[in-house]
């Protein structure tokens, strides 16, 4: 039988609503679980136990009085440490923000709190979300729950590992180029990057504004639908958030997929792809075929340039976004030396890690006069081309399928010496960010005990299709 901390979110909500489960008992069980495993996994940077227990008591009181309970009532959630939480430290895994406690809640936090979710704590990540392994954290890496020699993926490694090992029932991460799908794949959980503009970025500490979205990580597809229902929707405080009619994503659960057309872009099954990954992903596609879907192999030529375009745009935006961390108004401040300029340089030199500095320098270079046209502007043009290619594909296919990660979870330290190799991991995930389309990673088996994920990409605002096909796959693989 399942232990109390292992339940899915929808089960918790159901049990608390009909009085079968005490919220306090369940939250306490989660904190016991954190105590038991997190010294090994290192998913959390900060736990907010007192606050969480108070909230759990309130929910129990509400339940006793028969008052209204929200759609996420009692659900214990972990939040990536780049999403601002009022009075809970938010560090971005960086020394530069190691003492930063926001005075406000991000819009998504307001929304999940309104639906009675409980925040357990803040999770580990690559510094400022720059990385694919959570090794670039000032506080040390998160360990893969399935193999303690391997990485959890990144940058939302803490959020994915916490859900995978049931230190949280669901979590929020952020996905700039695969930062939620990568660790979801490596940790054997589900991660969805929503359509750009569907979820408010207000309160998400920016890495690359035009690419990223706050993204849910869950144990099963039903939870995803409930969580997305809560966080999606227009927010006046984010000018890039779109005014779309809110969908009820739970209505896609269980719908059959007869006649569903799947495109399989060969560029996302590149030469470097691990053969075991290929095998499991194809197996999954055939499962969908058995359920009445059909697939066609296609080619999207422009994808060749996706990774280069992604890194130029992301680093350019990052170089400007991170300019504010000068230690003068908040955040880490080194000892004062001489004048403003020296103090400021010292604060940044000591506050940022190597990878962050590397990306700032690359981005600064790409935006410099004389190089702007050659790099930034060209990258934007490539982005437009890729979008056109995908638009064309989506005229013929409902979804596209590919491996989430071309490789299995790698060993800790394996790719730290070669940043380019680390960047190559994002090959299959970055296109969705470049075109603003929704994409999901769903577990599709494992090899040698290491989880493997399949990625589905749909056209913007078709999160419903992703939920529909993912649920069917989940259902089949569970049997």
């Amino acid at each position: 039988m399942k232990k109390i901390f292992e339940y899915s979110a929808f089960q918790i909500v159901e049990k608390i609503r009909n009085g079968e489960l005490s919220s306090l008992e369940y939250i306490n069980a989660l904190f016991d679980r954190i105590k038991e495993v997190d010294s090994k996994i290192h998913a959390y940077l900060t736990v907010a136990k007192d606050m969480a227990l108070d909230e759990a008591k309130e929910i129990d009181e509400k339940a006793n009085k028969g008052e209204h309970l929200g759609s996420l009532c009692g659900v214990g959630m972990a939040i990536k440490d780049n999403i601002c939480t009022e009075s809970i430290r938010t560090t971005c895994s960086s020394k530069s923000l190691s003492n930063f406690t926001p005075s406000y809640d991000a819009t998504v936090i307001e929304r999940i709190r309104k639906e009675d979710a409980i925040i357990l704590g803040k999770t580990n990540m690559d510094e400022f979300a720059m990385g694919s392994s959570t090794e670039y954290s000032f506080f040390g890496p998160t360990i893969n729950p399935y193999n303690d020699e391997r990485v959890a993926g990144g940058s939302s490694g803490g959020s994915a590992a916490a859900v995978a090992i049931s230190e949280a029932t669901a979590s929020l991460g952020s996905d700039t180029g695969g930062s939620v799908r990568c660790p979801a794949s490596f940790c054997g959980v589900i991660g969805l990057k929503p359509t750009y503009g569907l979820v408010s970025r207000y309160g998400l500490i920016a890495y690359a504004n035009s690419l990223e979205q706050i993204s849910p990580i869950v144990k099963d597809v039903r939870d995803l639908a409930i969580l997305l229902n809560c966080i999606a929707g227009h927010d006046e405080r984010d000018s890039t958030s779109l005014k779309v009619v809110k969908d009820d994503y739970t209505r896609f659960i269980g719908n059959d997929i007869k006649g569903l057309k799947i495109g399989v872009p060969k560029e996302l099954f590149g030469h470097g792809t691990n053969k075991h990954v290929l095998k499991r992903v194809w197996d999954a596609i055939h499962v969908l075929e058995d359920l009445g879907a059909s697939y066609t192999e296609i080619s999207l030529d422009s994808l060749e340039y996706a990774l280069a375009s992604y890194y130029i745009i992301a680093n350019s935006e990052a170089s400007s976004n991170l300019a504010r961390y000068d230690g003068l108004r908040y955040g880490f401040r080194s000892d004062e030396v001489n004048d403003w300029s020296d103090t400021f340089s010292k604060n940044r030199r000591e506050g940022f890690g190597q990878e962050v500095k590397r990306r700032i320098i690359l981005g600064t270079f790409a935006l410099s006069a004389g190089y702007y046209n050659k790099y930034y502007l060209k990258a934007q043009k490539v982005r437009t081309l890729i979008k056109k290619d995908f638009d064309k594909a989506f005229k013929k296919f409902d979804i596209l399928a590919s491996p989430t990660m071309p490789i299995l979870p790698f060993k800790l330290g394996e790719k730290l010496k070669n940043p380019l190799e680390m960047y190559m991991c994002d090959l299959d995930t970055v296109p969705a960010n470049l075109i603003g389309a929704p994409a999901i990673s769903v577990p599709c088996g494992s090899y040698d005990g290491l989880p493997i994920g399949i990625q589905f990409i749909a056209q913007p605002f078709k999160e419903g299709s992703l939920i529909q096909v993912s649920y069917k796959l989940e259902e089949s693989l569970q049997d």
Partner: protein
Amino acid sequence: MGNIKIGLEVHSQLTNLNSKLFCSCPTDYRGKEANSYICTVCMGIPGTLPVLNKKAVEDAILIALSLNSKISDKMYFFRKNYFYPDMPKNFQISQYDKAGGITLATGGYVSIPNKKVRIRRIQIEEDPARITYEGTIYKSKSSLVDYNRAGIALLEIVTEPDMESPKEARIFLQKLSSILEHLDVCHSYLEGSMRCDANISMEGGKRVEIKNISSFKEVERALNFEMTRQRNLLIKGISTKMETRHWDEIRRVTISLRIKEEEEEYRYFPEPDLVPTIITKEWVETIKDKMPELPDAHKERLIKKYELSPQNADVLVNYKLLGDFFEKCAEIYYKPGAISNWLVGDLLGYLHEKGIQLQEMKISPVHITKMLKMVDNGIISGKIAKTVLEEMIISGKMPEIIVKEKGLIRIHSDELIEQLTNKVFEENKEAVNDALEDEKAMHYLIGQVMKLTKGRADPELTNKVVRDKLIEHKKLLEKKN
């Protein structure tokens, strides 16, 4: 000596907005405690996002229309990246006309006597914070930053180098500020609300930019200094370099900041947190409908309706607040000509002398019209009225109160004036004798009586009494002889 070409880059705050350009902080920060008008957005606290103030765009469009500029159908915000303590985010959200950027408006002109100064472009951006020093910049141990100003909506108006003298630059700025005042979008009398960079080049020399000019008066000064400096160099056969210079207001000199080889490195790129602003024809039309009377039409109307002199009308248009004040006075009292003379002459002169801003004076139109009525009714003399006016401006008291308190009412009493005249005759016997022959001496005697009453004696009455007395005196003399 060759031609001079001057171009200006005017930064004008949109002072009539209720909130900053990208957040809801209030804008009336002047005189408020430092760093009290700030929020997470304008302080660039991690995770916060800008939301464009639509009213700021409307005000900017109104200005662009009044300058005859072409409004873009779509505009973008760009980030201008540079590190400086006055920038909470270490970049400024601005606009850019290169790299695919489109600013709010391009083209247009401002008419000044005998020419049109062409506008190159108009753009919206956020004001940086204010940096102050303890004492002077050279002696201060640290810089103090007040972020109250950070994020205030700022309009940058760039002209073509169409002005040919520092004086012309000042006239242009006066006209521009009068236009903005008429639009009720920027009140240039607010400290630091209009600032200016200037560029100047002389035939045979390169273009020099002057930064940090805080007011219009300073613009003319700085340009005059720079003109002389460049002229002296040219005389010596040295050609001016392309450079940026800083205007030192205290020492009244320009100091070289940097020699320019190429464009400064600001790493402009489109602001990813904002979407392009679409400016529809319909939107522009509704803004156009709100266009108020502009300076040229205003002047014409003042001349036609009130029969004012063009000179007075000019001043009333340039000082829009005074112009409005004038019209309110003219509504209550039937002598617009006299009113305009008082306002343009004595009132404005006194304000300038005392360094008082128009909006600081404590009087209402009724003060002025009551005072004029008192003059016209012979209760006070014109000379006394000037004293009353000055007192009104300072204290805000009504003229009749001042007159009463200070005992300024005109003396109509025959008896009193006769007494005083006797006294003057006693003490000025020689002058009395002269006055029998000489008009001048008679005026001297009248003057002495006036002096004893501190100008309050009714002049006509005094005149009559002195004359009568002289005649009497003459008769007496004749009898004796």
